[in-house]
């Protein structure tokens, strides 16, 4: 159990539920180490009756895990439910050859942050890296191979998939170092990756997708053509979702999009309409190519993303 300075020590009975608070971005923002963040996220998600290897689907039972929204109900242990009136999932040890590739958008727009305060801010990039690190951690724990791609307008880093114990350290190190100063070019990057990836993989794409929809569509289509499973997480800041500004405001655009001095309250309705329209188009595009699409708010808990990943992983193995 991790105890932060100033925090009260929790009794043992509360420890299990206490881990779930590490799914909250505001808590995670106070932790500088990405690998520690990832561990805590996974701990929070996998809180069970006893410590166990973090498993998915296998023939050999490994442990029980508490049910969370999005879990496949086929794995519910109905006997336990009958005895305890609580829903737990069965998890099994399994051998797998899954390749997980996390593609993280490191463009300038991902640096936008309104969650947290001072130095303990939580940007969209923080959210994306936390998810990527957590998923990688879980995958490596299950002997899956994990790779990483970081891009802005170019593919900055590409780490080939591997399931060696040191892989996770490499990944978290890369995610920490990458600067975010440039424009994005998602479609081209996806094209490049589609050419690079020779093994059928589960691709997790973490971005705000503030890019040309046509280009994104082209890239995704290329990945799907290569038989990769794709999960797209659109990560947005609460300010971007609500646009609650008032008073004369100078908006300085990231990614070289200029400046705009305006009365935001007058533009709010039109802005929200544009954003919703873009998201709807993106969602429709993904649905058309059987790409899982999830829009994430950096102020919300991360378990949704992780649960979705586990469900998708299970489906891909099956």
């Amino acid at each position, binding site marked *: 159990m991790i105890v932060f300075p100033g925090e009260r020590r929790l009794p043992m009975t509360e420890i299990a539920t206490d881990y779930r608070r590490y799914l909250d971005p505001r808590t995670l923002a106070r932790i500088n180490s990405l690998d520690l963040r990832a561990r805590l996220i996974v701990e929070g998600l996998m809180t069970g009756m006893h410590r166990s290897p973090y498993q998915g689907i296998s023939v050999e039972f490994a442990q029980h895990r508490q049910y969370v929204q999005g879990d496949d109900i086929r794995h519910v242990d109905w006997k336990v439910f009958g005895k305890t009136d609580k829903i737990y999932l069965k998890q099994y040890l399994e051998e797998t050859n899954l390749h997980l590739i996390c593609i993280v958008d490191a463009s300038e727009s991902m640096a936008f942050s309104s969650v947290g305060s001072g130095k303990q801010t939580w940007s969209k990039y923080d959210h994306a890296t936390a998810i990527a690190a957590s998923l990688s951690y879980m995958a490596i724990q299950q002997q899956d191979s994990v790779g990483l791609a970081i891009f802005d307008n170019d593919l900055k880093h590409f780490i080939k998939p591997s399931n060696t114990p040191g892989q996770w350290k490499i990944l978290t190190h890369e995610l920490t170092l990458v600067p975010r100063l440039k424009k994005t070019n998602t479609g081209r990057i996806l094209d490049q990756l589609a050419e690079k990836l020779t093994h059928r993989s589960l691709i997790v794409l973490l971005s705000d997708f503030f890019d040309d929809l046509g280009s994104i569509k082209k890239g995704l289509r290329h990945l799907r053509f290569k038989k990769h499973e794709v999960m797209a997480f659109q990560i947005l800041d609460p300010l971007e979702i609500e646009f609650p500004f008032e008073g004369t405001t*100078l*908006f300085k655009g990231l990614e070289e999009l200029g400046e*705009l001095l305006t009365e935001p309250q007058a533009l709010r309705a039109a802005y929200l309409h544009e954003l919703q329209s873009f998201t709807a188009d993106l969602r429709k595009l993904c649905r058309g190519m059987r790409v899982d699409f999830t829009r994430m708010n950096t102020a919300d808990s991360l378990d949704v993303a992780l649960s979705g990943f586990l469900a998708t992983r299970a489906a891909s193995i099956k």
Partner: protein
Amino acid sequence: MAPGFVAAGLLLVGIPIVIHILNRRRFKTVTWAAMEFLLRALKKNRRRLEFEQLILLVTRCLVLALLGLALARPVGCQNGALSMLGGHAGLSVIVIDNSYSMAYAVDRPDAKTHLDQAKKLAKGLIDQLSGGGEAVSIITTSPVARAVIEKPGYDLEAARQAVDRIQQAYGATDLAGAMQKALEIAERESRQPDKSLYLLTDATRSAWEGDQSTSLKQLGPELAKIYRVSHFNLSQGQNQWNQAVLQIRPKDNLVNTKFMAEFAADAKGFGAGPDSALEWSINDRPLQAGQPLKLDSDSAPSTGSYAFKSGGPQVVQATLAGKDPLPADNTRYRVIDVASELKVLIVEGKRGITPLEGSGAFLQVALAPTKDSGPGQAKSDSYVQPELISDLELGNKVLTNYSAVLLANVAQVPSTTAGQLEAFVKQGGTLMLFMGDLVNGDNYNKELLPRKLLPGPMVGPPVHSDEKGFFFDFKPKGVPHPYLGVFANQENSGLDTAQVFDYWRVEVPASSPVERVLNYQPAEGSKPGEKRLPDPAITVHSLELGRVLFFSTSANADWTTLPVRMAYVTLMQELLAGSVRPGDYWMNLSAGQSLEIPASIRLAGAPTLMDSAGQPVLMTSESRNGVAMYRSAPLERPGEYKLKTGTAEIPIAVNVPANEADVRTVPDEALKKALGDADIALHGAELPLQASLNQGGNDFGWKVMAFAVLTLLALECFMAMRFGHFRRSQVVRETV
């Protein structure tokens, strides 16, 4: 309208614009990732946003501009409706006495006269009102009551300026008229809950206890029910005195060039004043040095005499030497139309062949006695110029060329002729009717009686007597009718001994305004104690501007022996002089009256009128029965005016009303009594503390202003919400 508020409103219009510009300079900076959506939203909504911002800016500017205008209370927005919303609307009516007596000079700082002090007081009262809240109306009293501000206005600065514009009048005080106007204003402004009436007068007897006392008694309680009435006595503490010439009157009705004219001047003194002297002058030429006079309110008239050498309008002037606090009434002017020739038309019903046989022959001789004269010399010295015609010629004559028309034993008067006679009399002519054996009583009753050209219905047949005859009821020792004043105390005038054998009896109603100049002695055989009025022998009555004289017997010797007596000439001269209207009746006016030129005055062109300073006075004309009638603007200042008719210059006398000279004042208790014991607050010539005037106070102006501001701000907020401000209802939280 208050220009200050308008200017302030227009200046305030700039504030939203300045704020808008400042807001563009003061902004917060946000680093923004989703810039593409923002730019796209702006591109699609730029026109709408600009339009909404413009509407909002214009609305804010209008809010301030309208607020300034509302406070300025422009024309068309001055009713009390908005004020009523404040709950404390008020109305103040200020009656300022500007009559001549208010010109009384006193030793006060910044106020030389009572009127100056009254204006100062009025402005002080206005200053105590709530700006933009209470309405003010101002009424003056002279020469007639006039509302300077009739519709109560909220612009107090305009009210102050109106007070400044009030001029000293030289007319009388129409206090009852002013109060009536105040009553009418209160009735029109019945929704105003708080009403005050301020009377600013010098409390003179003539104003408060004169002709209008009955009206004041009636109006006082009515006003006290509606208004909180306050009186400011401008003469309080002043020991006022004044001397004046109240009237100049000729002894005789008709002044002519043949006889010495006597005049009487009523010079009076009111209050304790020094001795004075009266100086006469004719046409600006002094006549005689004035004798010292000790004047009081009961002083006997001073007399003067003058023999006019020429006829026409001439100015008699009487002036009191010395100075007093009201100098304008020390001089009085009187225009006398001196008769040098009086044209009369004698209409005979019976023409004679021999001298004195015609029915009007004696009249002609009596009015213009002949004298022995050589060729080319006048046959008579009389100023009367009779023209003898038959009744058949009457219809061809222009009656307005004559001062009098005498019908002597005219049998019948045709309807058209009766109409002409009626018009002639109404315009100021004199009609003298003499009876005779030819007179048809039925015709007279039918044509003349309805036109009021008879003193009453003639009752036929004519009354006849035997040889003894009837006698006029004339007593030399008694008090005769003014027309017969010349016969007073004359034992052997012959009037009482002249016999009348026949006469027409007329029934004069008891309530009739007809004057009996001379009656017949009661007939013998009348029962003692019988209260029957004697039959009238001579009557006179007025019909509009003219007079009708009825002589019940003949003008010649047919029915009476009077024409052969010496008294006949004098009687006829006196009857004519007494009943003829002098031509100067329209030439003597009081200050404030307008000059109206009678139709009988011949004009060679548009008349012009100059005042005593030589300044022209506006004359207007209007058509009345097809004849252009000229009327001047009210003649405000006393003095001698000059009317130019194109062929002649006629003097016009304008005098201060006589009753304004009496500057003696009534005490405060009498003021209350004069107003019917109404509840009024009495003050002196100074403004008391505001609290005593404006009990209960009022702050409604601020409430109205606050109401207006809140209303307009609510409108602004609504528009700001509608066109831009953040609305919580629009927050859409997307499910992740």
